[in-house]
């Protein structure tokens, strides 16, 4: 890239202060005792994620994987313009339900996170939170070129370029935007991965937790949440 002015250096010095509601404070209890509150410690569970072993018997795990493959519950969370391509999947024309795919409104009940398009840093924080709150095994599908290499936002100051730096992506569906047919094909491929037991993103995330966190924190300067959002 020739046209870059090397003289510009981003500011790496300034720290963003912790948000006020998360700063440690002391409050007076009803009995007059003054107690210290450290919101991050007191409000949030600080455990790191665990690497979950597979079931003791392969046949059981295979059975489970078969069930997981045929019961893909997508978190209803649209991050970019790609979200518009997800909606037709529910319509009679594409009817994703017949493949065991359905949308859930809460991450606790979803096991597939579709990053549907460009992901600004601000949204990345929410995506991380949503991903971490999903129970494992969980899968991430990156939708469109923006999640692959930044796409048309390749020079944006506020849009990430490689989703797999931050979340363990199982599958990318290329295109700008991919059509619903492409999405369906992608989900079918994901099913195959799951059935083969190759979609272990959650474990990968737990194993490389420090790496992921370092990447995430390098772009999210106001990290105002625990390291892992249970």
């Amino acid at each position: 890239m020739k046209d870059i002015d090397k003289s510009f250096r981003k500011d790496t010095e300034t720290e963003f202060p912790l948000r006020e509601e998360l700063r440690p404070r002391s409050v007076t209890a009803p009995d007059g005792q003054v107690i210290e509150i450290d919101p991050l410690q007191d409000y949030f569970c600080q455990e790191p994620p665990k690497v979950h072993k597979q079931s003791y018997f392969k046949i059981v795990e295979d059975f489970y994987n078969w069930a997981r493959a045929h019961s893909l519950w997508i978190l209803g969370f649209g991050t970019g313009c790609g979200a518009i391509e997800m909606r037709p999947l529910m319509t009679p024309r594409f009817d994703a339900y017949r493949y065991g795919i359905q949308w859930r409104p809460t991450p606790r009940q979803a096991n597939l996170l579709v990053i549907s398009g460009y992901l600004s840093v601000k949204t990345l924080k929410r995506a991380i939170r949503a991903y971490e709150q999903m129970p494992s095994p969980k899968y991430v599908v990156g939708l469109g070129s923006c999640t692959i290499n930044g796409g048309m936002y390749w020079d944006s100051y506020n849009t990430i370029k490689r989703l797999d730096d931050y979340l363990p992506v199982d599958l990318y569906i290329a295109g700008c935007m991919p059509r619903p047919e492409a999405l369906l094909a992608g989900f079918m491929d994901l099913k195959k991965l799951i059935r083969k037991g190759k979609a272990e993103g959650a474990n990968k995330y737990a194993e490389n937790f420090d790496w992921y966190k370092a990447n995430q924190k390098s772009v999210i300067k106001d990290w105002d949440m625990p390291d892992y959002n249970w």
Partner: protein
Amino acid sequence: MMRDLHDHLKTRYRLGDLAERRGNLAFVDVERADLRALLVELRDVHGFTHLSLLTAVDWIEEGRFQLTYLMNNRAANRTLGLRVFLDRADPVGDTIHDLWPTAATYQRELREMFGIAFPGSPRVDEEFILEGWTDMPPYRRDFDTLAYSQQTFSDREGRETHDPRSHMAKKLYPEGQR
């Protein structure tokens, strides 16, 4: 029409020349000191009741910011843009949130993206769109977004960048004819 208005106002305000873009769209430079009085008169006397937008331009070469107040007279379907210039080294604008409450939102955006201060505007120093931003305001032209992006986000190998013009020409006319 716009010219009549311009002539009418010129007698009392220090106005620049009228730059007409269309019959019903024109811009004019005004002094910062006159701005408020002019806005009030335009709103209350001349029917420019609607503040369509308030935005800024970074004239880095001239060392100044330009604020554009785009006012619309719905009844007459006319739009007048007032341009005010601020010193880039110490950019401080005058808040007009008391004239149009929506202006507070514009001013908050300008504060965040250009670093132009509007003392007295409600919540002007709070985060607006960016979250946890610590670098220089990103709409200033000395902020190099590409460099920032490269220093912040990692590239994926194998990505190719084409100049759209030459790329499409090559694709459409592989033999090179025009």
